[in-house]
């Protein structure tokens, strides 16, 4: 009986020291001088710009990766083609690769001295240190989530209903919209939440390709670093709290969806 409490105490203590106390402390520091001070530091033009830039990146990366994810999952689970195993393992790479390496890779392709650098310069297109590069970085790091969430669901629901629909004369699109998509909707939704959270919070890859131009290529995560380096702790803490709140919303929706998904 004693051992049980000892284990519980150890586990909760570890979580408290590593997670709860630091995160809680930043919340406390943010609102220490009142909500007004926090509000002022998050409504500076730079902070507002960083917030909307982050939203724009999410709004581009998430739909693209969602469509890609569903199509890719369908291809991998429901069709057979050469190199399927290779493609399947390729999809995991963005999980495992250092974000800094992702940024470097993009510079080597689209940067001034990169593979397409000369062509891009001649055509007046700037990718690196500008918005398109940040979009590419965000897409890269958040690419696997929808695929990986939809694949197991597709395997589980099987093909009986789809075959029945086909027998009854539905064409491929009708089967997809009426049978397949409703069956995998919670998998897709869960994948979308994870993709969004990853895209919102990306730091390393975006940092390398952004060039850190304040008020121009600064996302919310980069803004946190910038404020910290400029000794504006309140600004850094407040932006961090906004991101932490978004993370908490993510956690809540993940938990809600898990429950809905189990019921459905």
């Amino acid at each position, binding site marked *: 009986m004693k051992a049980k409490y000892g284990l519980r105490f150890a586990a909760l203590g*570890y979580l408290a020291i590593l997670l709860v106390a630091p995160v809680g402390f*930043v919340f406390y520091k943010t609102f220490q001088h009142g909500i007004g001070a926090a509000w002022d530091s998050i409504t500076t033009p730079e902070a507002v710009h960083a917030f909307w830039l982050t939203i724009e990146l999410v709004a581009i990366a998430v739909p693209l990766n969602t469509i890609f994810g569903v199509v890719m999952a369908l291809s991998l689970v429901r*069709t057979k083609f050469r190199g399927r195993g290779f493609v399947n393992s390729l999809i995991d790479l963005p999980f495992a*690769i*250092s*974000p800094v390496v992702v940024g470097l890779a993009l510079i080597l392709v689209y940067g001034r001295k990169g593979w397409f650098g000369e062509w891009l310069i001649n055509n007046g297109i700037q990718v690196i240190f500008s918005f398109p590069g940040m979009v590419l970085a965000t897409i890269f790091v958040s690419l696997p989530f929808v695929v990986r969430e939809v694949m197991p669901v597709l395997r589980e629901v099987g093909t009986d209903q*789809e075959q029945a629909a086909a027998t009854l004369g539905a064409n491929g699109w009708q089967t997809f919209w009426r049978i397949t998509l409703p069956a995998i909707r919670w998998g897709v939704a869960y994948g979308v939440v994870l993709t969004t959270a990853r895209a919102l919070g990306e730091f390393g890859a975006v940092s390398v390709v952004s060039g850190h131009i304040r008020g121009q290529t600064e996302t919310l995560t980069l803004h946190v670093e910038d404020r910290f380096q400029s000794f504006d702790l309140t600004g850094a803490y407040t932006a961090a709290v906004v991101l*932490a709140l978004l993370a908490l919303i993510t956690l809540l929706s993940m938990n809600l969806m898990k429950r809905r998904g189990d019921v459905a």
Partner: protein
Amino acid sequence: MSLQPSELTAGPLPSRPRAVPLPGGAALGRGVAMTYLSVIVLLPLAAVAAKSLEGGLGEFWDVVSGPQAVAALKLTLIMSLIVVAINAVTGTLIAWVLVRDDFRGKGAVNALIDLPFALPTIVAGLTLLALYGPKHPIGIDVSYTRVAVGMALLFVTLPFVVRAVQPVLMSLDREMEEAAASLGASSFQTFRRIILPNLTPALLSGVALAFARAIGEFGSIVLISGNIPFKTEVSSVFISGRIEGDDLSGASAVSVVLLLVTLVILGLLGGISRWRSRHES
């Protein structure tokens, strides 16, 4: 930051997919998806590999064996090993408490485990620095030390082992443990002889994932470690420094070393998951 999907590694593919009516343009869709994957992921990574070998293997080796690069790689690998070893113990402990113990607020604690996946890494680093840094309210300052690097890595890798071990622990048959206990095994013996062997495959894949995550980590470390060469500079920070100094070949060479380690780990994970599917069936 990384979030853990329910199926992190390439699981086994169905060996014989049945022919199913897919939307008319199934082949077209697949082609587009492949192109997307190649342009977004494959092409840039190929550029890193190509750049690292631009000056030949000799130059590659010179960069990688330079004292600062070696120090950064060594720190990264050793620190990651220490961190996953700690994770193996604490992760199993937390999973155990979440599955076998019962207390008020357990649901909230369970949800909290995913926080490091959801929280941006720069925020994770900032929160650790706020509490355990130079402006410490409690008299502990670990900033700019290797302990800080370790703490940041422990923070971001926390969920991997817990989430790998938890489902296995849940599905474990209690009868074996009861049998062992009734035959006079102490609870430690039961754990070591009965429970641990059953957990090992899951524990290993959790550890491998945490390791892969740890060697590439950047955002949570960059503020708290101080990035002191030969002391607290990890590989990803080293690479970032090379990029800022416009030494793209140097950055690429060290990146390729990290990529190779990553590929080995992904290979091991594939092996573990095949072993698991045999072990568990």
